[in-house]
């Protein structure tokens, strides 16, 4: 047992492969960035549908939010990678295949768009009606009101919540290795197949993710605390 423990804590092999592992981590960051932008824009769209004047629009928004917020990341990933291309293929009568990276961004973007939509909606509904009426009485168009009055306040209010969602999203990017996006976990399992030494490599991966996410989430905590005080003051 002590031998196994020694092996586990011997991270020299992890260090030996640092170049390829770092490359993997950069891939995690790339998937994160793309999926986050997708989630933000689709989420905003869904939130606007949810506060729309027309009831059918609201239903579509609600359906979007409930489906994607309640979907497990992994099944969405598999569905988008293996089913969506077939569906699109039948529609345009041509063979379609998604690059794993594209599938990963679409799947995670959709799932998190559900969460972001709720954050946006809560922020939008918290804006006092008087603000909007004031905008209208100045002759501002609905679009201008959205960009100049509603969104600036929404963004400020939802920032702490959004940062937490970003962290969850970053954690979720680890599963993209399952459809062969070469992220850190994927490269780790490749090296394990070569070296047959899972102990130090899995431990190294766990520690690396822990350190990165711990640093991110503690800074988010400190920042949010200050931000809330500033907003409330």
């Amino acid at each position: 047992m002590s031998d196994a423990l020694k092996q586990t804590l011997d991270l020299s092999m992890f260090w030996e492969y640092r170049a390829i592992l770092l490359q993997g981590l950069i891939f995690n960051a790339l998937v994160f960035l793309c999926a986050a932008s997708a989630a933000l824009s689709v989420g905003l769209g869904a939130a606007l549908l949810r506060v729309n004047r027309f009831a059918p629009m609201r239903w579509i928004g609600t359906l979007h939010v409930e489906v994607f917020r309640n979907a497990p990341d992994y099944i969405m990933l598999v569905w988008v990678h293996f089913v969506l291309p077939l569906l699109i293929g039948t529609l345009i009568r041509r063979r379609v295949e998604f690059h794993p990276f594209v599938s990963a961004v679409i799947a995670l973007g959709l799932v998190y768009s559900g969460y972001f939509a709720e954050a946006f909606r809560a922020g939008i509904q918290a804006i006092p009606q008087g603000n909007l009426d004031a905008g209208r009485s100045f002759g501002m168009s609905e679009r201008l009101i959205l960009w100049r009055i509603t969104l600036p306040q929404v963004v400020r209010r939802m920032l702490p919540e959004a940062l937490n969602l970003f962290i969850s999203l970053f954690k979720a990017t680890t599963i993209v290795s399952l459809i062969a996006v070469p992220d850190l976990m994927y490269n780790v399992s490749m090296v394990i197949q070569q070296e047959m030494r899972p102990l130090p490599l899995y431990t190294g991966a766990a520690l690396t993710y822990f350190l990165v996410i711990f640093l991110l989430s503690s800074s988010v905590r400190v920042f949010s605390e200050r931000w809330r005080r500033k907003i409330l003051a």
Partner: protein
Amino acid sequence: MGNWERLVWNQRDVLLAGLGVTLEVCAIAFIAAIVGGLALCLTRLYVAPLRPIAILLIEFFRDTPIFVQLMWVAYVWPEVFGFPHSFFTAGWLALALQSSGYLAETFRAGIEAVPRGQRDAAFSAGMSQPQTFTRIVMPQVVLASAPSIVNQFTVIVKSSTLISVITVPDLMSQSQKLVNVWYEPIEILTATAAIYITFVFLISLAGKLLSDRLRQRYGLAAS
């Protein structure tokens, strides 16, 4: 519709068996997470010498992605600690560890929200420390954190899809097996996704009703 019947309805036994395993793993993980979370939280608050260890564990469980933790528990733990012996155990254990970290923080927030004065009042009424904890503090903590606890169950169900990766025959894994037999993923995967989404939706609906109920009856600002 013929495809749906052939690929989904006629395979319902396989899928239901998978759903059974999913439910079993999630239920065990959920109970273990509540027990573990309570233990971590109490250690953090009341056992001063072990406090740094409890904080480190809570942070580690919370800040490590579930997939990474799962692989770690399934492949590293057996060699180092001599257990878990099966992937089934590794599956619920990893799910429980992750959620116990979150629940520990939920419980801590609940305990810290109970006003100091109530504890002092209990003491002065002659209640012992354990009595104060079980009769005064805990009921309020359970009420205040009930919605987050239910929410944590949805997190467990969602993450449980990943145990198919370590060959636990849950719903996800059964449906992937069917896909590999028939090579027709559309119906099977769509049905599986629909089952998961409906299931998680129902749990969160129940959680919402519960928190509304609690708020009405006890006037709690449930979140």
